[in-house]
């Protein structure tokens, strides 16, 4: 029996909003402000320009126009900002959200339909938000006999490992969360965790279909790890270092893809297999094993795994860009100063609007080109999803263990020939600056 919805009254809406605001203010005053004071009592405050940054100094600096920008610049270079906002978690999450939106609309356009349309005024922009709210509000069903600690921890481990891979990616020179000297090997080592997590989670689900899916995930991801780092080997030989920033900087004359196109192709196929995307989405093959190792995920666990999966997509596309597509190099299209002549003038408001010490044309240019190239590779991965069916496990393993490794060796010999011929690499004719 359907019920008739009550009429909407604007007064009721305003009343409930005011009530919500008052409740929030009450909670903040009674609980949160004392906690802040308590924490400030124990936390040592940072030192800026020779003075301890107390809240009073902070507010006065913010209000004084000539001192705002150095504060912002200082905050932007702290480790917390880099890890959480840019180029870390928030930046990657925004790219992941944009990827999800573009994926749905691109696939819909290819399939001659509309995709999400009604959430948000313009062609369903807020669909992801609606989906996220829905997932948060769902009940998480734990199967009987499931291994509860691993069942709850595995999605969290998935997201954190993906975030760890994201933290190794340099977006511009100097903008990387973790600048390791062995960055490339660290990326591969982190990628080696994913089959383990998939297997643990599928075993903990205590059900047959996840079990089959977990075994398939294990076979698939392990089979494609070897072509993955074999295809990155000539890059390391050419640039002479494992540091991702150095690899990107060594491509300022020509991009690596012109020397090793086969390796780029192999890297692309291997990253599709690592990401479990169509045509390699056997572990989640819907028509054979319901949803593979993700069968028992529900609610926010599913949301976390999707988030981790798209973060990994961003990380591997960015890795492709850094290794083969020249990182962040591109023609300089951003002007040197936002408002010409602002840095030498005396009007402080003009300096703030022109983002005086903050705006670095080279960095902004790098970020722009990096994002464009990453989205280009993501677009390629999405279009591949639209035109291909799923592959079978024995064909997949045959491809991974035989064909791709042979292809990488071909390109390795080509690059070694070029290096010994004295054309490329350290001591060659074409030198990076």
């Amino acid at each position, binding site marked *: 029996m*359907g019920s008739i919805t009550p009429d909407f009254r604007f007064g009721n809406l305003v009343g409930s909003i005011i009530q919500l605001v008052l409740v929030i203010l009450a909670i903040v005053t009674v609980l949160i402000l004392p906690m802040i004071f308590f924490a400030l009592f124990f936390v040592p405050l940072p030192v800026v320009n020779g003075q301890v940054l107390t809240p009073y100094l902070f507010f006065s600096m913010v209000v004084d126009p000539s001192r705002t920008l150095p504060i912002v610049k200082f905050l932007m270079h702290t480790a917390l900002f880099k890890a959480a906002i840019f180029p870390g978690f928030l930046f990657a999450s925004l790219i992941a959200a944009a990827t999800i939106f573009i994926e749905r609309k691109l696939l819909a356009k290819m399939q*001659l339909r*509309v995709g999400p349309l009604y959430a948000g005024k313009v062609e369903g922009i807020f669909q992801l938000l609606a989906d996220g709210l829905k997932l948060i509000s769902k009940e998480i069903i734990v199967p009987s006999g499931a291994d509860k600690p691993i069942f709850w921890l595995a999605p969290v481990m998935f997201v954190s490992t993906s975030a760890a891979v994201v933290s190794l990616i340099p977006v511009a020179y100097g903008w990387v969360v973790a600048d390791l000297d062995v960055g490339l090997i660290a990326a591969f080592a982190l990628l080696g965790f994913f089959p383990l997590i998939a297997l643990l989670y599928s075993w903990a689900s205590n059900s047959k279909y996840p079990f089959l899916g977990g075994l398939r995930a294990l076979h698939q991801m392990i089979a494609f790890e070897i072509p993955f780092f074999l295809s990155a080997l000539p890059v390391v030989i050419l640039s002479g270092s494992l540091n991702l920033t150095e690899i990107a900087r060594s491509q300022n004359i020509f991009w690596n893809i012109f020397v090793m196109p086969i390796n780029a192709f192999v890297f692309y196929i291997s990253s599709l297999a690592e990401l479990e995307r169509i045509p390699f989405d056997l572990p989640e093959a819907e028509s054979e094993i319901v949803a593979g190792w993700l069968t028992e995920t529900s609610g926010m666990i599913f949301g976390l795994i999707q988030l981790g999966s798209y973060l990994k997509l961003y990380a591997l596309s960015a890795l492709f860009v850094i290794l083969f597509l020249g990182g962040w190099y591109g023609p300089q299209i951003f002007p040197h100063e936002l408002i010409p002549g602002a840095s030498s003038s005396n009007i402080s408001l003009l300096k703030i609007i022109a983002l005086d010490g903050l705006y670095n044309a080279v960095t902004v240019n790098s970020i722009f080109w990096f994002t464009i190239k990453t989205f280009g590779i993501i677009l390629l991965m999405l279009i591949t999803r*639209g035109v291909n069916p799923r592959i079978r496990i024995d064909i997949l393993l045959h491809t991974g263990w035989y064909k791709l490794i042979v292809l990488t060796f071909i390109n390795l010999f080509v690059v070694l020939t070029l290096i010994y011929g004295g054309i490329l690499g350290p001591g060659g004719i074409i030198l990076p600056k």
Partner: protein
Amino acid sequence: MNTASGFIKALESGTKHLFIKRFTLRYPEQKLKFDGDGYQFDPKRGVGIAGLRGRHILFHDKCTGCQLCAIACEGIAEAIGMVKIDEHWKQNKKSIMPQIDYGKCVFCGLCVDACPFYALYMTNDYELSSFTKSSLIYTPSQLAVKPRYDGDVEIKIDSKGANHG
């Protein structure tokens, strides 16, 4: 290189479709147009007249209460029942007319085929949903109301593909 050309052709076919118009009908902002007034039946010639089989329309000045529509529906869906009404018509001595339960009707139109007096037709109106089951039972006076339906979107096939309106 049969494999490579197969992949490239598939990619090309897929990307070609990114530039074709989308085919979806955006209901309820767009509604389909129908030719004609709905399914009708001519008992003299014994054939029907093509049209959409939607809600029925009952002409009170023609219905004689012969129950043939209810008898036809008895074996199919049992959706038509005869009820007594307040009106007095010359041709309807018993003053009974059909009432149709749209919770049970399968819209097959065999009741329209059974009526020999041109009294029961079907119309273009298909938006019959309601919040309660009891409001799906349409009384004879509700069935006499002419529907107002104004859809105007058709499938158009042009050089860029087919789309709705």
